Each structure stands twice: as C-alpha cells, then as structure tokens.
C-alpha cells in the first residue's frame, strides 16, 4: 500500500476498536494525543509472541529464549532504522517517554549538573518534561529556567540565546506540544543550542504518529518517545541517545541484565544499551512497537502527514464556524491537536455532553499547567487527531458542540 493514495476507510478497517457504538452512537475517537488505538497488526504481534515465543531474553539456552531474544533485539534494530539512529546501542527500551526523561535527568543530570548550573526547558512542556528537571534541580542545587511562549502558542525563540548561558547544562524541549499541537523547529533549536555547547533532549511523544523523525538529521543528543502514542502498546517507550553521550553516563537503575559480573565487592556494568535496561524488559511491548512501525511504513508516513494536515485544516475551519468558540491551537506549524474553549462553558461540561454523543475528547489541563496558565485558563477541550480520523469525525464533534450550546443556552 506504500505509495498508494491514502485510503482512510482502509486504515479504519485495520483498527477493530473503532467499529463499536458507545452510548448508542458510533464511537468518534478524538483522544489520540492521550493514547492512540492499535491496528490489528500490533494486536496480532502481541498474541503471536505470547502464543508461540514467550521466554525471558538474554538468558536461556533453549529455543524459546533464543526466539524471544531474537524478536526483542530485532525490534531494537527496527526502531533504530525507523528513527535513523546510527547504532542499535543508542536505542534504550524504557516504560515510556516519562521514564526516558527521568532516566536522562537522574543519570546524565546527576552526573553533569551541579550547584549553580542551569537546565532550560520551555513553557509548553508536558509535566513529564518539567517535574523530572525540578526534582534534579532540587537534588543538585541547580536552577530550572523556562523559555516562554507567545500568544499564538509558538516558542519565543528570539529569547533562546539569552537563556542559554555558560551555566546551561541541558535544554529539554518538546517536538510537538500535547496541549496545543505546536510543532517546534527542533532542528534549528538543536543547532543553536549546540553552538552554545548545550546538549538537547527532545520529547517526541506527540511526533511519531504524525511525521517522520530522523534523529541524525535533528542532531539532538536525546530523543524520548512512547509506544502507545504511535499505535503501539502501553508500557514500552524508547530513549534514543547519542552513543558518545550515553557512554559517559552512569547506570540509573540496578538489577539483572544491566551487569556483566556481580560480587559482594564490585559490579561490572554491561555495555550499551543493556547498561540502562535493568530487569526483564517489556519484551512483547518492544515487539508490538516494532509492529506499529511496520504498520506506519506500510500506510506510508508521508501520506499520513498529508492526511493529518488536511484534517487539521478542515477541523480548524469547522471549529471557527461554531459561535463563541475560542481556538487555542494557532501556532505557525501544527500537528494533530485542536485545543479550544466554549464561551461560558467549562471544558468538563463540554466533555460530558460530547461523551453522550459518542465523541471522546479530553477536557482538562492536559498535564501542561504552565502552558495553560500562559493563556489564563485552567482547562481546555482537546480534540486530537490520528490517521484513522475523518471529516465525519470532525462533523460529529461540531454537532456535539451545537448540543453544548443548546444545553447551556
């Protein structure tokens, strides 16, 4: 199907969960920024693994262990290829994007950030890219700084250099804002940070479901993402790190698999990437994530991106036609998210009424309270899109919003 025209009906047919009714209406799933649904190919990969190959990895001499190790390491290679990392040792399996960031904060951070140093983040980060840095800064006596956003929801990049000082030890920035959908010019940001000698971590949680990411092209030092936000299973995520940076970092969690030898006196740590993978990993999750990447490539990421952008434009026009609606997603470059409020109606009330119409959205602060406070609001309604969404989904959302107006007339 690669190279073929994008066929949303065919894509939808691959996602069994979409074909159900909730509350007597066809499900309209507009909450993919929270978690995406899973194609049959991913579900099948999980079932196949547990039905035929399940065994612990890197341990057994028996056939099943060989098969599961091969599948697990095969997944690592698939992921390396998907994000164009140089080497599989740069692909560290973690539980999710949050754990990846915590790993960097506690391993890289505790060894490279000291008293009086600074960590720079941005005002549009998810709490998972704020709190680990707050914890680190408290632990080591460093200062956390925040690059502001403008009224459109773009970073104030003209202030970037002024915020990168000789004490800045790391810049952490999201690729795509989960609350607004703003796509940040990460490649340019990395270049400018590197010019000041500052390494960069990119939070890619909201990116990979929507467009191709090439970590060598971005030249970032770390790239963190979750499987479940890109059509893979929950419980698996990836930390990409440049080998040279990872090599210089101490282990984070201790346990099996991350060691070569252990005596009461001394432990010799394993090489990359295993040094950062303590304990039995989420083997099926890794395999499921690789299957999700296969699926994305089968559909074709270019076609997916084009579909996403067309849908976003259609959704923007449709929402702008709803009286009393204030749209917050107005950045120069956007992806996947329509964040808004209805005049005089709280986001939760909108969410409840939409739910009764079969429309699933998220209402709340989207774990991005500093960002929402920039706009002077505590909560918004967020409709988030994925490749399986259609114009009909947007139309159902708009019909639901008219219902909201009726109830709160």
């Amino acid at each position, binding site marked *: 199907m690669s190279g073929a025209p994008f066929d949303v009906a065919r894509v939808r047919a691959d996602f069994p969960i979409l074909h159900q009714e909730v509350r007597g209406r066809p499900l309209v799933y507009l909450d993919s920024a929270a978690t995406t649904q899973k194609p049959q190919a991913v579900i099948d990969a999980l079932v196949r693994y547990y039905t035929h190959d399940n065994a612990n990895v890197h341990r057994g001499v028996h056939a099943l262990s060989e098969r599961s190790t091969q599948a697990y390491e095969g997944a690592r290679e698939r992921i390396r290829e998907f994000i164009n990392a140089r080497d599989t040792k740069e692909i560290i399996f973690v539980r999710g994007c949050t754990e990846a960031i915590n790993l960097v904060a506690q391993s890289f951070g505790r060894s490279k950030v000291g008293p009086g140093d600074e960590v720079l983040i941005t005002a549009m980060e998810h709490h998972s890219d704020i709190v680990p840095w707050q914890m680190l800064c408290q632990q080591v006596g460093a200062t956390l700084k925040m690059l502001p956003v403008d009224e459109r929801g773009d970073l104030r990049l003209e202030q970037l250099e002024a915020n990168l000082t000789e004490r800045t030890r790391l810049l952490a920035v999201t690729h795509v804002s989960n609350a607004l959908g703003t796509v940040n010019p990460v490649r340019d940001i990395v270049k400018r940070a590197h010019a000041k000698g500052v390494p960069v971590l990119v939070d890619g949680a909201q990116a990979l479901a929507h467009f191709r990411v090439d970590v060598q092209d971005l030249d970032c030092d770390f790239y963190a993402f979750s499987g479940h936000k890109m059509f893979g299973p929950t419980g698996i995520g990836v930390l990409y790190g440049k080998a040279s940076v990872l090599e210089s970092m101490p282990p984070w969690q201790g346990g099996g698999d991350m060691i070569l030898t252990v005596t009461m006196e001394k432990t010799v740590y394993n090489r990359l990437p295993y040094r950062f993978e303590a304990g039995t990993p989420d083997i099926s999750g890794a395999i499921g994530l690789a299957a999700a990447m296969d699926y994305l490539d089968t559909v074709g990421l270019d076609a997916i991106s084009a579909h996403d952008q067309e849908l976003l434009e259609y959704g923007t026009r449709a929402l702008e036609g709803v009286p009393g609606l204030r749209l917050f997603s107005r950045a120069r470059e956007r992806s996947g998210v329509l964040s808004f409020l209805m005049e005089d109606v709280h*986001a*939760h009330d909108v969410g409840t009424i939409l739910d*009764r119409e079969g429309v699933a959205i998220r209402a*709340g602060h989207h774990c991005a309270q500093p960002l929402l406070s920039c706009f002077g609001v505590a909560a918004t309604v967020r409709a988030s899109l994925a490749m399986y969404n259609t114009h009909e989904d947007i139309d159902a959302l708009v019909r639901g919003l008219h219902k909201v107006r009726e*109830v709160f007339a």
Partner: protein
Amino acid sequence: MSSDLQDLYQEVVLEHGKRPRNFREVEGANRRADGYNPLCGDQLTVTLRMDGDVIKDVGFVGQGCAISRASASLMTGAVKELSRADAERLFELVHKLVMEGPEGLDMEALGKLAVLSGVNAFPARVKCASLAWHALRAALEGKESSVSTE
C-alpha cells in the same frame, strides 16, 4: 438530549452554575480551605465565619465547571446556620447521593441539593460535585492546607 444528561444539567444546576450564590470571600472569616481537583486543575476556596460551633456565614470563590459551581453554590445556601455536626451529616448525604443515587436517602433532608442526584450516572463528575464539600469539611476541621479530590 438524553434523559441522564437532562438529569445532570437540571435547570437549577445550570442556573446556580451560571450565577452562583455566595460567590465571595466571607467578611471576617475565621476558617478557610482550598479544594483542588488535580484531574482538571479546578480550584476553589471556601471561607467560613463560625460562631462557636455554628456556621454563621459561608462563601466560595474560584473556578470550576457547572457541576462544581452549582454544588458549591447550593452548599453555601444549605449549610448556613448549621452546626458543624449537621453540616458534616449533610455532606455524608450528598456524598451518598452522588455516589450511589437517591434510593433510600432522606430526600427531605437534602432539600434543594436533591438536584445533584443526576451526577450519579456520571462517575467522572462525582469529584466535581464533591469538591466544595471536601473544602468545607477541611475548613470545619480547621485545616489550613489545600484538600484534593484525589
């Protein structure tokens, strides 16, 4: 509109949500507490003026959805002139109402608060309806710190 939605957003609820009563800080308040719902970031503050064991005045400020504002507004009307013990008993009743529904409850004792019965069909909204009450209880207990619905 579906009937459970109608039950949730009854006229009285919508009206109190739009124009909440006692939406103010109580003058000369001697008790106060914040209520916070970390799920949505909603936050309100309840202030009380107690005369001995009796609530002489009560108000609330803050932001929230129609349900949390209506519940807070109705609460301020219901607990004025109540003793601490009676106010806490009323909270127990309201809590049962939104958690389990109206069956077997003393609806007369609930008075106007009975309009919150529709919340029961919406588990995700129970915390909205109980936010102000948690803050009231904390204020009655003399706790200064913020209470959370979690």
